[in-house]
């Protein structure tokens, strides 16, 4: 049963990205919606606060996955299924394909979008450590033009981003990634589970390691990365890692469990990419 009275909701259905940007500005407050795999859970539970929604689903230009001068551009509307099927994504960022395969179920992968995962800003978002480890750039557009925000500067706090209400996330840009990519999600089961801990990493001369569900936002762990690149033993890196995360007890796991699993994942990453 849907616990939100839909008669109280209004849906704006723009035919172009420009029209969407205009509606965002002129009809504020407006909540953009794409695959609805998260938003409709709130609507069904009756916890959706917004009353005016903007559907992006039919804006196909935002769905493209393409390579431009070595940089992989993934449209914000690309679904997990489209990323899994994309030869470009498989070649350039296999850790994103791995993450996409473990999100929800086939039903969710057919509807959920990478842009939704990013702007939803959950600390447990499974693609977020991947994008952090990839040093991705987010392309935000408004009627005033576009700006590019490094992924590491996008989140300003728990479920908070630097995006303005009149901006739309239109694409994610992935620079070429040197080094072996690694992804691991730890949850109660392989499908339909929200992560207890999720980690993505790149084994470059200076390794890049990002973690989800261990802090208010997705985090990179620069001290750990530095230690590993300087040749520190893994035990020291594991100890250092503990100082760079702030996991909590919640309904999915405990802080102590998360700390232990994160240390194990670091060792496993290091061993498997040696």
């Amino acid at each position, binding site marked *: 049963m849907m616990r939100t009275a839909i008669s109280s909701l209004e*849906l704006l259905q723009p035919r172009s990205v420009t029209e969407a940007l205009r509606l965002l500005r002129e009809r504020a407050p407006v909540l953009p919606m794409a695959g609805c795999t998260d938003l409709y859970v709130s609507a069904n539970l009756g916890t959706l606060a917004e009353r005016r929604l903007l559907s992006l689903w039919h804006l196909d230009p935002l769905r493209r996955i393409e390579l431009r001068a070595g940089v992989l551009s993934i449209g914000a509307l690309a679904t997990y299924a489209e990323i899994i099927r994309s030869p470009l994504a498989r070649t350039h960022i296999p850790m994103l394909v791995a993450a996409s395969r473990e999100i929800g179920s*086939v*039903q969710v992968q057919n509807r959920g979008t990478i842009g939704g995962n990013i702007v939803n800003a959950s600390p447990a978002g499974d693609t977020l450590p991947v994008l952090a480890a990839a040093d991705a750039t987010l392309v935000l557009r408004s009627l005033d033009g576009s700006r590019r925000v490094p992924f590491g500067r996008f989140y300003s706090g728990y479920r908070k981003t630097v995006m303005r209400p009149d901006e739309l996330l239109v694409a994610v840009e992935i620079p070429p990634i040197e080094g072996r990519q690694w992804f691991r999600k730890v949850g109660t089961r392989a499908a339909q589970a929200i992560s207890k801990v999720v980690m993505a990493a790149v084994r470059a001369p200076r390794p890049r390691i990002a973690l989800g569900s261990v802090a208010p936002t997705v985090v990179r762990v620069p001290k750990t990365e530095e230690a590993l690149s300087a040749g520190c033993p893994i035990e020291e890196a594991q100890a250092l890692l503990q100082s760079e995360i702030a996991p909590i007890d919640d309904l999915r796991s405990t802080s102590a469990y998360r700390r232990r699993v994160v240390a194990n994942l670091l060792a496993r990453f290091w061993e498997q990419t040696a």
Partner: protein
Amino acid sequence: MRFTLNGRAVDIRAHPLKRLLDVLREECGLTGTKEGCGEGECGACTVLLNGEPVNSCLVPFAHVRGAKVVTVEGLKGRHPLQQAFVTEGGSQCGICTPGMILAASALPEGVTRGEVRAGLAGNLCRCTGYSGIYRAIEKARSQATSHRPQATGRR
């Protein structure tokens, strides 16, 4: 709003944010699509949207504009999977069955048992223990695969 439902062009009036699940059951009178959890976890409300399984409890009606929707009624009781679910004990209480069959119908050909399990990971069954379901899917697939629900499109 116009879309194709089980192979027929239809024009249905409903609020654009009404769940596809509710439009199918209430406006279209097709009650084969079941509501389980109402939050995209159980897959009972699975239908095919342009050939791909989706949870109809998470699809606003506006998103099916111009699309092809297939519900269990569209299989007309004659799909090999439906027959195999009967003979192999793939169905007990029946709530998960329509979604299970539609999700199974969208699996690519030649998949392994492991790939069937992964493909159906979003369809929960609390009765069968899944063995009968996997057996039914394998039986249906070993038979003639000429009866496909519809051509698959993108999105």
